[in-house]
């Protein structure tokens, strides 16, 4: 067992600070709460603990054991072996952004390249070194937009087709701030332009998703123009994999692009760690939260990388900083960088195309089943679509799980009674044609 201190050392330290025993240090805690009974099970050996954890882990069902069509913001993609191999190198193995450029050139260069790739994917001018996940990146977009207008525009319009968890996180994150959220009680059938009803001279930001939570693809060019005409900003939360195929939001006029980077080489892993992507226009860079790596030259004129524009951040600007977040997802950022570097532009497009075509094959087969139809048949989609079923979607999903199929996400839990019978089905490159046919067969048996 590891003992950090001997009794003699403890005694010497206690004497030095002038107390008789360690318990005296906790006098400020009310006595009733000082030493609660922990009721822990008896101690176990390492061997016993390992066995217990293994048995617990065995109860989990993962996408390795099941046929999965579950997405809703987290997607089952192939992670090339090289991603983990590079991630687990000691030089890279930290979750943090390094302050000291003289000993951190490798990590800083990887982050710089990540930022450059995010800019290329999104069509934006500047990207930070990441946030925790897609949800917090949206919250940071709301906070940044609020600060860009110096608090004079306290309203943020959230699309009802923005991931329900992103909306929830954003509200939680900004509790106590003057920001007010509107728009997301619109029916999700409404076109994005319906959000304009809320856009006036008190609106800072309109936040939409691309592809949206229902998988739908809209061109936001006209929306961006209308939002800008009223002096507000447009934010777009993206699935970065879809950008291998789709027009980047920067070309539509987006002012802020956020994203969930999990599809880029990061395993599902029960919900995290994931990767929050954040990009914006250069003119807003000083209002952007998070770390930013820049390229410069060292004293010998050689290319070098450093953290830059740090005066934006809370360790210098204190309470006047846009955000108190200045850490990032270093390791997950590296995973996305390695993934994108391995695939390259054409490889990424190829994976995106596989997702698109497999999802469209599945949608055609499923919509042809008696009692089934696409919920949004007129709107293009990427790798996920809303399927109207002949019975409540949660019952169907529970039934299929008995046959080791994760059929998708029952939309009623987030969108209420109107979506009780609607299942959100995601198809990725991991789903074989045989798996899709199995899903079609299984759903065909439900009436």
């Amino acid at each position, binding site marked *: 067992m590891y003992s950090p201190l001997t009794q003699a050392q403890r005694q010497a330290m206690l004497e030095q600070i002038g107390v008789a025993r360690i318990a005296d240090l906790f006098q400020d805690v009310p006595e009733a709460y000082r030493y609660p009974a922990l009721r822990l099970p008896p101690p176990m050996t390492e061997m016993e603990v390992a066995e217990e954890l293994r048995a617990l882990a065995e109860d989990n069902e993962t996408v390795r054991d099941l046929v999965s069509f579950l997405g809703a913001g987290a997607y089952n993609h192939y992670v090339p072996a090289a991603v983990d191999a590079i991630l687990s190198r000691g030089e890279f193995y930290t979750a943090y952004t390094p302050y000291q450029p003289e000993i951190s050139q490798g990590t800083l260069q990887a982050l710089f390249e990540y930022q450059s790739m995010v800019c290329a994917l999104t069509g934006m001018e500047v990207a930070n070194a990441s946030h925790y996940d897609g949800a917090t990146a949206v919250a940071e977009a709301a906070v940044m937009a609020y600060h860009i207008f110096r608090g004079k525009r306290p309203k943020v319009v959230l699309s009802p087709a923005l991931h329900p968890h992103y909306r929830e996180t954003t509200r939680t994150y900004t509790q106590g701030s003057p920001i007010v959220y509107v728009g997301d009680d619109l029916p999700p059938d409404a076109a994005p332009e319906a959000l304009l009803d809320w856009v006036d001279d008190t609106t800072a930001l309109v936040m939409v998703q691309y592809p949206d939570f229902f998988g739908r693809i809209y061109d936001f060019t006209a929306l961006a123009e209308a939002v800008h005409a009223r002096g507000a900003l447009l934010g777009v939360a993206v699935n970065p994999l879809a950008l291998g195929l789709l027009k980047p939001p920067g070309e539509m006029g987006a002012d802020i692009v956020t994203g969930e980077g999990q599809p880029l080489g990061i395993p599902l892993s029960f919900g995290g760690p994931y990767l929050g992507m954040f990009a914006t226009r250069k003119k807003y860079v000083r209002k952007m939260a998070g770390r930013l790596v820049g390229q410069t030259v060292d004293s010998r004129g050689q290319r070098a990388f450093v953290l830059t524009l740090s*005066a934006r951040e809370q360790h210098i600007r204190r309470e006047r900083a846009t955000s108190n977040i200045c850490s990032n997802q270093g390791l997950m950022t590296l995973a996305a960088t390695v993934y994108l570097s391995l695939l390259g532009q054409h490889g990424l497009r190829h994976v995106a195309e596989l997702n698109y075509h497999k999802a469209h094959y599945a949608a055609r087969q499923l919509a042809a089943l008696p009692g089934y139809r696409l919920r949004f048949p007129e709107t293009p989609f990427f790798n996920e679509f809303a399927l109207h079923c002949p019975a409540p979607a949660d019952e169907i999903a529970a039934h299929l799980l008995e046959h080791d199929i994760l059929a998708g996400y029952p939309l009623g839990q987030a969108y209420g009674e109107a979506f009780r019978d609607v299942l959100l089905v995601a198809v990725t490159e991991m789903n074989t044609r045989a798996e899709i046919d199995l899903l079609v067969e299984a759903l065909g048996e439900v009436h």
Partner: protein
Amino acid sequence: MNIPQDLKYTKNDEWIKPDGTVGISDYAQDQLSDVVFVEFVVSEGDEVEQGDIIATVESVKAAADVYAPVSGKVVAVNEELTDKPELINEDPYGKAWLIKLEIADPAALDELMDAAAYEAYCQSRA
């Protein structure tokens, strides 16, 4: 250190001319070192109270808020600084004025430090 006689000074190192021109002092620019960015928080026509933030000046090592030395109406903002923030280091009392105020109550200037008092104040911080 350059401390012109015809100006009034604040404890936050702003200077103001009797005509309402406002900037930051030579001492302030020296403490900040190379200024890389100036952001105005007020626009022409805004009414400001004494102590309101009017701009943020960012250097390679710090970001400092600049406050209104007295109350009044903003009648001009030196937009040139947005493109040439280095003027604050080069000419803090001249080209690098920040805003011009229509001073609400000229008597408010009497409350501020004169050059001698400000020099003593700077030395006390040395």
